[in-house]
């Protein structure tokens, strides 16, 4: 069966761990140090959903979601799906994500979406820190995952879930 090429964007405020999620998924590695992404860096990986449809994911790691310039609109254009990210240690990143999502939808109203709350290794999940995040996902009717790129938790699962929605 032919492999289907799909453009997938990672959306979220700076420093929430977009690059780290991609690095974990594609290279299975993790970096502690923070290097701001500039422009767009695409990675490629084959993903199969549960029906064994095989996708060739072109994963867009984008900088500058804070603005909504023409350049950002062009980055978003043509996405089949997106992984939305917010940092469990920074509740403000969830507020940012809401506005990023609204803007992304104006460009790609049909795109499939999955939400990842990131850096679960830094918070006490058993104490319910993630509730605001999961509530937000439920309010927006999004499938969600509590992830850690550092501890390789739910990273692959998120991408596979997205493949299942395409």
């Amino acid at each position, binding site marked *: 069966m032919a492999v289907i090429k*799909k453009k997938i964007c990672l959306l979220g405020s700076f420093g929430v761990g977009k690059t780290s999620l991609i690095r974990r998924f594609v290279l299975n590695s993790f970096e502690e140090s923070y290097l701001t*992404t*500039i*422009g*767009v860096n695409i990675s490629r990986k084959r993903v199969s959903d549960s029906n064994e449809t095989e996708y060739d994911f072109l994963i867009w790691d984008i900088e500058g979601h804070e603005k909504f310039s023409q350049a950002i609109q062009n980055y978003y254009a043509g996405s089949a799906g997106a992984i939305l990210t917010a940092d469990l240690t920074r509740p403000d990143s969830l507020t940012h994500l809401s506005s990023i999502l609204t803007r992304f939808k104006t460009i790609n109203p049909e795109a499939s979406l999955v939400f990842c709350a990131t850096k679960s290794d830094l918070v006490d999940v058993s104490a319910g820190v993630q509730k*605001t995040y999961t509530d937000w996902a439920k309010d927006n009717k999004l499938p969600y995952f509590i992830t850690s790129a550092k501890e390789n938790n739910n990273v692959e699962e998120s991408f596979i879930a997205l493949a299942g929605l395409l």
Partner: protein
Amino acid sequence: MITKSTGYLFELRDTGLALFDENGTLLFSNNIFRRYCRQPSSLLNECFPETVGLEEIIRKIARGHQKTFYIENINRPGKKKDAVYLNLSLHHFASSAAQVVCFVWEVTSEAILKQRFVQKENEISLLKTRLAAKSSEGSALIGHSKKVETLRTTVVQIAQIPNINILLRGESGTGKNLIAREIHTLSSNARKPFIEINCAAIPEHLLESELFGYEKGAFTNAAASKKGLLEEAHEGTLFLDEIAELPLALQAKLLHIIESRRFRRLGSNREQQVEFRLITASNKNLQQLVSEKKFREDLLFRLNVVQIELPPLRSLEEDILLLAEHFMHLFNLRFNKKAEGFTKDARQALLEYSWPGNVRELSNLIERAMIFNNAKYIKKDDLVFQSGTTSDAKTWSVPDGGIKLEEVEQKLLLSALSKTNGNKARAAQLLGLTRDTLRYRLEKYKL
């Protein structure tokens, strides 16, 4: 008409040039374009996988329905470790067939400048949010011990019951305010206000107007009306810390509010309805204050619908280490450090200390140990305990079965000697004795 020489001309300006049909199939390219391609191919979306998903846009441009489209700062791995940055633009090319011209050129030096600048901006902004985050966030509920597990389940269960009054009991520094906030966060009123008042921190004569608010002219300085904290807490949570310090007159008023769910601003004769969850906290024995007539029994009865006991840190055993690590991670973030753990000695010292100041003291201790320290592991010497000995006199108590004073004395003598490696002069100093007295006591016990 694009020819080989057109391609060459653009090479002189370091620009890649290519021509595609409306399906993105390559018709022509120059050397520079081919050099920047991700892989050699006759398809635009293989040369530049960044164009996957743009099929519709490319067709529009080829047919002249859209003029251009561009992608800025495409990252490509460079020769060494550094990235190369490219701009790519697509344009309608007016010819007989539907065609798209593509330009690619390098913008690495500008992008690197931008990278440095944005990196600094982002780092500053991250540091600011980290600083704002409270140092003890979430710490009251960390741990695997039975006590913490129980506390955690109680908090989750209680939070689900709307507007039930809760009294938090525990030594100072055990994180009563954190538990109060946690209950609020987990409750259905989480998005409503959480209002916190420390009854001991506000002078008695201000407390009443702070709580109840006032109408313009209610007293000399009341130039305008002001909402009180009770009103602010409407539909949310009101947390009164150190409730034992609430003056008797205000205790009566608070009781009235709890019973009637109504109150009046100072200088107003209009009663208002308020709904909130009331959480109170105290490190004092309120029952005893009742018997001393310093606290109203009827009020205590109302406040105490559910009582939650916060365990002192020293009773949490191994959880002390989990908490210490939690704070280490937190201060790693806050101070941009990379500590990975504690040495064996340091862990031992943390476990043996008596923690009179509880979690708050632990947080302060780790903070102090990390501020000026860049080591991977926090050592015992980095930990500056408040009370010099590992057990504070206040926390000593005679075991239920009783204890022989002479036995304790012998143990202390031996411990002092072992601490000083047998140096009697220093051991005497540690115990506040003269050398002669020490010698006398050692002889007495034949030590």
